[in-house]
C-alpha cells in the first residue's frame, strides 16, 4: 500500500496529534511510515502542515499534485493545501458544508476531480465542551470517506493508544459524532462527471 496524506491547520488544532494517530495506525498494520512536520512557528499562530507517507519510501515530503488525501482542520488552510492533492484526490475539511467550497474555486476542483468532504467538527467539539476534540471528530468523519485507508475500528484503537487516558471517553464520543456527521451532512462527494482521465 502507498498513501500520501497531508494534514493542515493552525497551531493548537492538533495537526501533529492527528499525524501521530494515523502513523501509529499504519505501523500497527505492518506498514512503514515516513513524513515531515513543522515546529516552532506553529504555536505562534502560523499554519501547520504535516506530511504523512505510508508505504516504502524514504522521501519525507509529499510533492504537490500527489497527495491522496488532504485533511484540513481549518478552511483557509484547506484551500492553501489544495495544490498538494492528486487528480481525483479527496479533501476532508473541518467546516460547515454550507460554507465550503467558495464558488470561485469550483471550476478548479472540477478540473482536478477533487472530492470535497466537509464536516463541522468544531460544532461537534463545542457540543462536547472541548474545542480540541474537533480533530478526533474529523478523523472519525474521515473513516467514512471513500478510499480512506483506515477503518473506524483501527483508527479508534490508534487514538486510544496515543491519546491521554483521561480523554478516552471524550474521544470515543467525538469520533462517533464525526462518523454520524457523514450521514447527517449534505456533503456528498462532488466529483466532476465530465472529467477526462489523461
Amino acid at each position, binding site marked *: 500500500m502507498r498513501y500520501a496524506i497531508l494534514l493542515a491547520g*493552525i497551531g493548537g488544532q492538533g495537526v501533529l496529534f492527528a499525524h501521530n494517530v494515523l502513523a501509529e495506525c499504519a*505501523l500497527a498494520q505492518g506498514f512503514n511510515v515516513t513524513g515531515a512536520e513543522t515546529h*516552532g512557528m506553529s504555536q*505562534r499562530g502560523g499554519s501547520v502542515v504535516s506530511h504523512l507517507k505510508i508505504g516504502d519510501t*524514504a522521501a*519525507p*515530503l509529499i510533492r504537490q499534485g500527489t497527495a491522496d488525501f488532504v485533511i484540513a482542520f481549518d478552511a*483557509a488552510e484547506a484551500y*492553501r493545501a489544495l495544490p498538494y492533492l492528486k*487528480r481525483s484526490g479527496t479533501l476532508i475539511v473541518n467546516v460547515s458544508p454550507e460554507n465550503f467550497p467558495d464558488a470561485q474555486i469550483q471550476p478548479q476542483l472540477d478540473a482536478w476531480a477533487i472530492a470535497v468532504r466537509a464536516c463541522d467538527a468544531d460544532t461537534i467539539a463545542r457540543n462536547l465542551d472541548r474545542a480540541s476534540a474537533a480533530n478526533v471528530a474529523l478523523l472519525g468523519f474521515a473513516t467514512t470517506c471513500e478510499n480512506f485507508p483506515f477503518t473506524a475500528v483501527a483508527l479508534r484503537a490508534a487514538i486510544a493508544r496515543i491519546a491521554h487516558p483521561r480523554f478516552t471517553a471524550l474521544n470515543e464520543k467525538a469520533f462517533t459524532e464525526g462518523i454520524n456527521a457523514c450521514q447527517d451532512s449534505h456533503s456528498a462527494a462532488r466529483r466532476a462527471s465530465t472529467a477526462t482521465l489523461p
Partner: protein
Amino acid sequence: MKQKVVLGNEAIARGLVEAGVNVVTGYPGTPSSEIIPGVIALKKEYALDTYIEWSVNEKVALEVALAASWAGKRAAVTMKQVGLNVASDPLLSAAYTGVIGGFVLIVCDDPGPYSSQTEQDTRLFAIFAKAPVFDPATPRQAKEMTRAAFELSEKYRVPVIVRSSLRVSHARQNISLDALDSTPRAANFKKDTARWAATPRYRLLLHQELNEKLAKIKDEFETSPFNIKFTPTQTAGEPQKQKAKIRKHKFPFGIIGAGVPFATAQELLDELGVQIPMLQIGAVYPLPQNLVNDFIAQRQRVLILEEPDAALELQIDDRSKVHGRLDGTIPNAGELSPEVLEPILTRLLREARLLAEPRAANLPAWGAALQNLHLPMRGPRLCPGCGHRSAFYTIRRAFPGAFYASDIGCYTLGTNLRAVDTCLDMGAAITMASGMYQAYRLDGKHKAIVATIGDSTFIHSGVTGLANAVHTGARFVLVILDNSTTAMTGFQPTADHTRLADGTEGARVGIPDLVRACGVKFLRTADPYAMDEFQRVLKQAEQFTQAPDGGVAVIIAERPCVLNDRTPIDEHPIRVEVTDECDGCKYCLVAFECPSLVMNVAKNQVEINHQTCVDCGQCIDSCYKGFIVESKPMTILELAEKVGSGNGLVA
C-alpha cells in the same frame, strides 16, 4: 524487533544512547532542540547515568563535552547549523588535538531557511574543519550514522559530525529499537602536553597527523555501508543484450546524491517508472574519490543532488560531465524540494531519452485560483498575552523613531510591531547598539537607541557585548526581555534559574548580577504589563544615557512566557470586549497587533476572539478612543438567566 515511529531527533537520541554516550551537551536551536529531551527521556526509561546539559551556548557545550572525551568518555554535542559558527573555534582546534572517547557533533541544517539566519551547509564547515561528516537522508539513517560516528571517532581519534537537516530531524519514521551499549568507560585523563596543550610547532605535527588520518578515513569510506550503489535491475526481454549494451555505451545518465534530495529523487524515479544508476553518498567528507570517479566514468552525464550547498560536488576532481549547483542546474538558494526537483529531473531524463515527452493534457495550475480567494496571511506572530508585545508597544510609544537593535528569539517577532530594526546573530542587539552609538557620535549627533534581547540570548552572548559597551562608554537603553525561559525553541531552562536540563537543581546565575558585574550603573526591573510604570522607567533610563556621568541603562522586563506559565494571568483574568462604538479605524490592530483582535469585515469593527484570548487585558490601552473595555461582571440576574433556574448551579 521492536519498532516505533519517532521524530528524526528522537531517532538520533536513540542512536546516541545505543552507542553508550556518557555526556551530551548542547544549546537549543531549531531543528536540533528535541535531541537532548530525547536523551533525557531514554535516560529515565533505562535508568542510565548519562550526564546531560543545556549549556549557556554552543562553544561552551562543545568544550564541556570535549573534555569528557579527552577523559575517555563517549560525548556528543547538539546544535543547529548557525550554532556551529559559535562552536567553530574549539572544533577546529579539536580536529588537530584529536579525541579519546568517541566525540560526535550532531549539527542540524535548515535548508530554506525555515527558522535561521542562513542556510549554510555544515558539510562545507566539516571540510574546512577537517572533520569527517555523515549525511543521513532519513531518521533511520541518522540513527545508524550516529552509532557509526562514535566508532569512527574512536578508531581515528577525530571529532566526527553527523549533519542532520530539517527534513530528517523533523521527519517521522519507524525505527528499530536496538540494544544499548553498556561498555564501561572510566574517566582517566592521560597527560600529553604536546597534544592537549600543543603550541604552534606541535600544531604542525598534529596537522600532518590529521591529514594522515583523513587519508585513511577516505580509504575506509570507499567501502562504507553508507555509500550505496543502486544499479538498475535487468530489463525484461533480452537481459544479455541489454547488459552488453550498457557495457559498450555508457549509460546515458546517473545520479550521485546525498541526504534528503537523494531520497526525493529515488521516489520520483519510482513514480516515473524509470531506473537509472544511482550512488548515494552518506559519508560525504572525505569523499571516496575512487567510488565517485568510477561511477562518473561509466556515465555520459551525472547529476549531483544535495543541499543546501555543493559540499559533495566541490570535492569531485573532474566535473566535466557533472551537473549540479555549480553550473546552475540546481538552484543555489532555497530548499531542494520535490516541486523544485521534479522539472529539473524530468528535463534531464528526457534529454537522455530515458523518459517520453509528457502527454499534452496538463491540469490547470492552482496559483491564480487561490489568489482570488484572498486567504489570510498567517505569518508568525507573538502569542496573545505575550509580555514582549506590551514591552515593544511601550518602547515604541516612549521612543518613536529610535534605532531598535534586536536579537534572536520569540521577540524577533517585534518586527510586526515595527520595534525591531536589526537581527543579525546571537548577542548582536547589544553590540550593534554600541556600534550605532559610535557611528552617530563621530558626527556629534545624538541618536535614540533601544536594544532588546532575551534572557537566554543575553546569557548566551550578550554579557561580553555589555562589558564592551560599558568599558567603551557607549550610551543606549538595553531592555532584557526576561520571560524566564528559552521560549521559541521549546521552553528550555536558562542559567538565570536553578532548574537543569533533566529537572534536577543547579545554581542560579542571576541576570541582575551579570549586568552589575559588567559595570552598569543604571539597572531597574519592571513589569511590561504595567505599561505606565514601564514607560516611566524607560524615560528614566533615557535620561541616564544622556546624563554627563551616564552610560548604558539596563531595564530587565520581567513577565513569564504566557505559553510556559499561565498562572499570573489565570490569577487575575481580565476579560475584555470591544464596544459597539468601534469605528473600525484599526489603530489597535496596527499598534498592538494581538492575534486575538480580529477585524469583522462585515461590521467594520474589531472583535475579540475569545477562543485565543488569554484575558490579559493588555489591549485595553491600545484603543485611545476607549472602545476596548473590561467586560463587566454579570449581574446575578444575568447569571441566573444564563445557567437556567432550578438546576442548582451556583456561579
